């Protein structure tokens, strides 16, 4: 049991180190690269659309794709409804915390009801 525990902590430390490297490289290298060179205009124009595209794909991954990467149209009905609620609330309040909390409350209530 002791052995297992220390292995688990060791494993978590490895995971954290890998995660830190995965988080650090994409943040640091481009800044380093572009702090000595000029960023091409077309690159900036292209990158402008990256965040919105990435967030959209992450949302559909959460709602419409299951853990073994199969498409599920109505597997998470409560999440679909809660997502619509979040969109409306974000649109009107523009507050990150209100949107997230409302989404959590909505999905919680709906998962009790459905």
């Amino acid at each position, binding site marked *: 049991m002791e052995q297992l525990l220390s292995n688990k902590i060791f494993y978590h430390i490895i995971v954290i180190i890998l995660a830190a490297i995965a988080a650090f490289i994409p943040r*640091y290298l481009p800044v380093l690269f572009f702090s000595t060179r000029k960023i091409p205009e*077309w690159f900036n124009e292209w990158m402008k*659309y990256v965040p919105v*595209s990435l967030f*959209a*794909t992450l949302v*559909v991954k959460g709602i419409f794709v299951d853990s073994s990467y199969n498409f599920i149209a109505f597997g998470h009905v409560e999440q679909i409804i809660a997502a619509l609620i979040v969109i409306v609330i974000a*649109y009107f309040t523009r507050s990150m915390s209100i949107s997230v909390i409302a989404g959590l409350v909505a999905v919680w209530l709906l998962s009790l009801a459905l």
Partner: protein
Amino acid sequence: MAKAQINPEKARWLEVLGVSMPLCLSYIPIGLACGILLHAAGFNFIMILLVSVLVFSGGAQFILASLLTVNSPLSTIFLSLFFLELRYALLGSSLSKYIKQESARFILVFSASMNDENYAINYMKFATDKKWTPDDALLVERYSLAAWSISNMVGGLIGGAISIDLEVVDFALTALFLYMIVMQVQNHLSFVICILASILGVYFLVLTKNTLGLIIATLLASFVGFAVENTVRHHSKDPSNNWFLTKMFRPQITKTTLEDKQAQEKKEIKEAEKLENKIENVVERHDEPKDDTQHHDEG
């Protein structure tokens, strides 16, 4: 730098704290949710603190938690996080023009604790506030990192004490991304791209059975956005009134919290951004040593 100011150093950290406060507050619920999920994935609170300081990314930490619960191999964990964090490459390269003149050590520290939200604040401040210095920007990152890692750790601690439906907490991530989409969809084209990215996202995720599908879909959808905007700008007679580039309808806000004001400001900046980028390019070409030491104060 701040000789013209009456009480320069003391006022500055408070002023920056005021700028970062809405962000820090909004990190609390998301950080708590993230801490709870990481706790459920088997991390103790010291590990949670460590990972939230080193990774400092809501999305990545949520995905890390879900990968750990399904016992994914280390290579999958690394690659998924790496591809998810690739977006920082884009954020970083767009901020780099403001921190060019700083030391190598500053650039290292600054880029290590950059993320979506403090990037948004810093980009907005750099674009509008002439007095905004790289040091202020770093201070915003420090405040947001403190708020984030503390709420993560607290989440990890209460996660053990109370039982919570994890599927519900997991939705915090989706809600966070939905919020960011709503904030970023400004014109019809970005809305179209959002829909396109969703369809491509499902298609490539099912096709590749891997988070690599996310990256393919993102790069394709954003490239289509770029190509359409470019085509419209070059071939339309009146690009700013073209359907693709006209603004989406937005409601008048009756509430004005700090966050609202900030978002409002951010929206205005976005509108001015394109223009400013063009002006800046022209200016940079004409008078090269633009004030490269510090922004001076007008008093």
